[in-house]
């Protein structure tokens, strides 16, 4: 049956995606691959919860079965949450359906011919508007749609073959080497303006007074290896939305700025008044971070 089929390995996101599906007036179905997820999804208010039951514990290994089902049902849209697993499954489904897909969209709107989406291009410099005909596949993040009122949805269990070629050996929780920047209210970011690793203590002192966590640019984590990779902010690293992002000695290349541009307030300290970070900042000080940061730490102590 035509409709919108949603999947995410984050339960909260499943509810939000169902909110979009229901808002279109089309049939809204949650797709799950374990009894546990099916049970959770039951309460989200979907028209139907589908449980694809098979031998593999990995959701993406059901891509072929799901694609066959969606084709048979003449689905309008497969909408997945933009987590690594959601994207993987979505792209495989799009591959099997040989249909259009838009990844990690900023917005999603139903239109007569299918769906219109906006997405970032060139590392966030540009926004591209695209139209996809049905059937379409889209991935999107959280915070775009409201979850619907809770309900009690019927669960339909489908016994399907799964692809057993990729075998799960172990799964371990991702041990955060650094801090979880996503949870931080305030983040102090450090960049190549720091000439020695010891000097990061300037940022640590400031962060301690602010109650902030430390983040960094890709070069600090991947080239200098001064901080764990989990702590780098940017398009291929952490994308965060703190109340305050304060950057120290960061030039502000677009790839980094994308990681913080949803921050409520962005402040920057940099020697170079032409540094692009100032264009992305609410407040900035043109000055030597080595001089400014300790003064700011002291000033904030007095507040």
């Amino acid at each position, binding site marked *: 049956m035509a409709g919108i089929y949603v999947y995410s390995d984050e339960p909260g996101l499943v509810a939000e995606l169902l909110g979009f599906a229901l808002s279109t007036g089309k049939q809204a179905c949650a797709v799950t691959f374990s009894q546990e997820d099916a049970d959770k999804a039951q309460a989200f208010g979907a028209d139907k919860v589908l449980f694809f039951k098979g031998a593999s514990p990995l959701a993406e290994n059901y891509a072929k079965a799901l694609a066959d089902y969606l084709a048979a049902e003449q689905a309008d849209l497969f909408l997945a949450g933009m987590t690594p697993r959601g994207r993987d499954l979505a792209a*495989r489904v*799009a591959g099997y359906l040989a249909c*259009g*897909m838009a990844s990690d969209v900023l917005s999603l709107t139903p239109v007569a011919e299918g769906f219109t989406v906006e997405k970032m291009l060139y590392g966030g410099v540009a*926004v591209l508007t695209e139209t996809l005909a049905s059937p379409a596949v889209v991935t999107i993040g959280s915070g775009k749609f409201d979850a619907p009122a809770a309900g009690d949805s019927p669960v339909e269990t489908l016994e399907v073959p799964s692809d057993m070629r*990729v075998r799960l050996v172990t799964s371990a929780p991702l041990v955060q080497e650094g801090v979880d920047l996503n949870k931080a209210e305030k983040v102090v970011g450090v960049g190549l303006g720091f000439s020695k690793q010891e000097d990061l203590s300037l940022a640590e002192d400031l962060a301690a007074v602010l109650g902030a966590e430390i983040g960094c640019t890709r070069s600090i984590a*991947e080239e200098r290896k001064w901080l764990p990779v989990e702590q780098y902010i940017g398009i291929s690293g952490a994308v965060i939305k703190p109340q305050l992002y304060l950057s120290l000695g960061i030039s502000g290349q677009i790839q980094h700025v994308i990681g913080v541009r949803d921050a409520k307030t962005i402040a920057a300290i940099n020697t170079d008044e032409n540094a692009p970070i100032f264009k992305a900042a609410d*407040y900035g000080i043109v000055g030597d971070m080595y001089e*400014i940061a300790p003064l700011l730490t002291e000033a904030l102590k007095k507040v």
Partner: protein
Amino acid sequence: MPKIVVCYKWVLDEALIRLRADESLDFSAAEYKISDYDRNTIEAAVRAAQAIEGTTVGLTFGTAEAKRSIKDALSRGLDESYWINAPEASRADGAVTASALAGALSKIEDVRLVVCTEGASDTFARQVPPRLGALMDWPTITSVAELHIEGDTLTAVRKLKDSLETVEVTLPCVVAVLPEINEAPLPGLKAVLAAGKKPVTELAPADIEADLSPKVTASSTRAYLMSRKNLIIKEGSAEEKVAALVEHFHKEGLV
């Protein structure tokens, strides 16, 4: 000899895209480059080739412009290169790219492994590797942070949202690697000179079986604008500047 194929993309250097006064994008100063993350992918393939005692083959789907990528890619350690020269590449979506790559891959013998980057630096759509796996009906592993090959078994550590997942597969397969998989060295000048002597195969769309009609219709591109207050403190002593910033933080309720 078994082959490892590396798919890479020749992209515009986004750092050189400028914004015009009318908020449209100015590409006139933008140069092309091998997508940054592809450098790590090439390095991953070069290391994998040592494990299977095989050779590495670069593969790119691009317009005539992409010809310039070939020696660059070869200088990074690849043994030979395939280039699908197609004007369609300029408006390709994930479906088209995956189809073209699959078409070219069927022309290359004894491929044991296809290594892609998780996402290209221009679109960062992260579609092509799983699509390619689906089209070729090969097992596919994405978000790969570590890669080991022993005999016919490939073991990968996948970095997912909040878990590290170790999976294994029997070759052949498609993998999509994260840039953190290794540190890609700068190629030496000697490697650049050697690149000119390596074999290159050019394929035209007619040479491959592929569906080159996009499934997604692009309607417009605009600059992503950030509206920020841009209150930049340039004048005064360091103490005065700090005081002014603290005052702003106060008003924002941040301290």
